[in-house]
């Protein structure tokens, strides 16, 4: 006899049990991060009859052929790519927003306007001590606001660099982890549940790494992955069981550069690229703010030198420092303001030097310059916000299509649960039948 009803039924019950286990595993992991829905492939076990017994029924039941991981490499690649782009946009946008806040909330524009206003107010009575004092007070407010903006920019830069450095560390840890997963994948049996879990882990690590920088991946048949970081050109990062080292370096102007194993690397996308772009923007913004601050200091101090103070002596500088961060007021009292032209008597109400100062300030127009800087930053923020929301939509839809393809649908699992439960019960009935047949045979001749 080539077939054994009991063992066929037992193998069916075993297969149904395995299918129920897989279903339960899917349900349990319905909301696990990076979990890809498993499905079972069950195949028939059969053998041909021996020599001369070809007509015999020769059936051996069913067995679990493979635990399949329903992952789509293309969709996963899309999720990595789009989430990298989104990360880049997020980091750049939040950096720019912080710069905008630093510039806008410090009120440096208002302070420049106030300074213009008190100078104009002084012109109606250039010897009035309270108006003179107001000019000096407003000048020091102006210097303070420039300092506050500069330290706000410092904080934005520090934050961006701190995050980027933490991410570089993370990327190195992920690289080492990927190398370990690669090693374990070479040892895992094909189609095993262990292998499926490793592949889950591999894809999850790749996705996290893709959030930092653009990736070039190539997958081997055994599931191991070789990863290169960056673009133009990509630098090899993980190869088999070995991982490279990602490093970052800060330039004098605060911008970041990256290298893999000492070779310069451009991230291309991901949060590292975002940080790099935001820091470049910050450096140019700082430069523009410094130019405005230095321009105001120069214009005011030059005009001061051309006139005489209230006591008839040559005007002394009001401001010291040449950058937004170092601008400060060195004049101690309003009497030092050189409103009168050179040669005027002490206490003169002649305001022609004050007028000259106001005219050169109007020509420099720091308020308009700052307005321009603010406009540039805010329009960049607005533009990036549009890009970011578009990338967000793209990344979300890529993720949703991946989840639809690889995620767990509880309704399907509920149906599977019933289906495999019934299969199990049916195999149990078959075993019952085998037992009945055996009893019948035993009962013959009683």
């Amino acid at each position, binding site marked *: 006899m080539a077939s054994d009803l009991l063992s066929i039924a037992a193998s069916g019950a075993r297969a149904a049990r395995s299918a129920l286990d897989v279903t339960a595993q899917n349900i349990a992991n*319905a*909301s696990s991060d990076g979990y890809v*829905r498993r499905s079972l492939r069950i195949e028939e076990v059969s053998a041909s009859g021996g020599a001369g017994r070809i007509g015999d029924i020769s059936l051996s039941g069913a067995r679990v052929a493979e635990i399949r991981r*329903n992952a789509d490499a293309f969709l996963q690649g899309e999720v990595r790519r789009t989430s990298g782009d989104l990360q880049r946009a997020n980091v750049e946008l939040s950096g720019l*927003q912080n710069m*905008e*806040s630093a510039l*806008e909330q410090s009120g440096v*524009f*208002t302070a420049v*306007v*106030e300074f*213009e*206003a*008190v100078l*104009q*107010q002084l*012109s*109606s*009575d*250039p*010897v*009035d001590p309270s108006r003179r004092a107001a000019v000096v007070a407003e000048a020091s407010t102006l210097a303070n606001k420039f300092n506050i903006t500069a330290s706000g920019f410092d904080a934005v830069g520090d934050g961006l660099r701190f995050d980027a450095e933490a991410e570089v560390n993370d990327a190195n840890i992920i690289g080492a982890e990927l190398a370990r997963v690669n090693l374990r994948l070479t040892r895992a049996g094909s189609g095993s549940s262990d292998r499926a879990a490793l592949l889950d882990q591999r894809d999850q690590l790749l996705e996290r790494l893709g959030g930092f920088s653009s990736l070039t991946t190539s997958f081997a048949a055994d599931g191991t992955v070789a990863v290169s970081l960056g673009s133009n050109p990509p630098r090899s990062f993980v190869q088999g069981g070995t991982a490279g080292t990602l490093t970052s370096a800060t330039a004098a102007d605060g911008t970041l550069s990256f290298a893999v194993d000492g070779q310069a690397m451009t991230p291309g996308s991901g949060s590292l690229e975002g940080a790099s772009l935001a820091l470049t923007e910050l450096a140019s913004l700082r430069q523009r703010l410094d130019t405005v601050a230095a321009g105001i200091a120069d214009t005011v101090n030059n005009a001061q030198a051309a006139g005489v103070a209230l006591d008839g002596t040559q005007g002394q500088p009001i401001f010291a420092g040449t950058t937004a961060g170092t601008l400060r007021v060195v004049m101690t009292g309003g009497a030092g303001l050189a409103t009168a032209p050179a040669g005027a*008597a002490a*206490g*003169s*109400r*002649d*305001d022609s030097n004050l007028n000259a100062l106001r005219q050169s300030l109007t020509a420099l127009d720091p*308020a*308009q310059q700052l*307005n*321009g800087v*603010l*406009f540039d*930053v*805010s*329009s960049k*923020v*607005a533009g990036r*916000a549009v890009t970011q929301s578009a990338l967000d939509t793209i990344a*979300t839809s890529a*993720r*949703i299509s991946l*989840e*639809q*393809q*690889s*995620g*767990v*649908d*509880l*309704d*399907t699992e*509920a*149906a599977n*649960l*019933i289906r495999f439960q019934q299969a199990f019960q049916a195999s149990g009935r078959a075993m019952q039948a085998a037992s009945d047949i055996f009893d019948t045979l035993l009962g013959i001749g009683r």
Partner: protein
Amino acid sequence: MINLSTGAFYERSTSQIGTLRAKAESLQQQIGTGERLERSSDDPVAAARLRMLARNERISTVDTRNSELAEADLTLTDETLGSIADVVVRVRELAVQAASSTLSDAQRSVIGTEVASLRDNLVLLANSRNISGHALLGGQASGAAYADNGNGIEFVGSGALTPVEIGEGQSVMPGLTGPEVFEFDTANGATDLFAVLGNFAAALSAGGDAAAQASSAVLSDLDAGLEKVTTAQTVIGSRLNWVDLMSERREINSERVADERTQVGGADIAVAMSRLQETLTVLEASQASFVRLANLSLFSMLR
């Protein structure tokens, strides 16, 4: 078969509801603050325009302040000129009186004393101060405009005035200098009111025929002086008109600026309210349908 992943359903639902909530909150903020722009990047062009409008408004308040000061100075000058004219008119009355041949030397001497004291009044008037405490007619100098140098009253101020800006690049001279009020030409060359009054008082106290002659002779000088003072009053009056005109313009301008501010940066409450209502309706519907859909699981059917 499309696999409707449970995770994807929750992710999509939460992101949709989150977007709606964020939209409702932004509308709520617009209604609460009355400002359409929360930060510059909400509308960079409008924000830049708003900043420049705010700057104009700020400068315009200084213009208003300056123009008020100029107006006060001009009004003070006008009043002072009125008092000066009164003094000159009084001296002219006295001169007419003194010219009468019926008066005795003693009576002329009394008139001379009054003229001398009127001259002292004139010096005080010439040195009156503006509201900042500077000599009203002293030009750019700080301190007195006229001083007694021992042999007469002399102008010690400066001959130039500082114009005051009153907006839109316009300015006004907030007063006059002493020479513009007191100095004038007569048939006998340039002189000023102080000298005329001083000499007249001296001639009256000296007495004799010369006193009566001086009384008739001084009349033409006084007329010329009075004309100079009234001319100065006319100038001040026209400057006051100019300041008034510019104040009106500034007011109209500030209304225009305020109007533009509302147009560029103000929230349209009616639109914002109805959009908020719309968003809230959609939000409530999505929340209700989310709960219904989330409960719709095959597991709840299994017994």
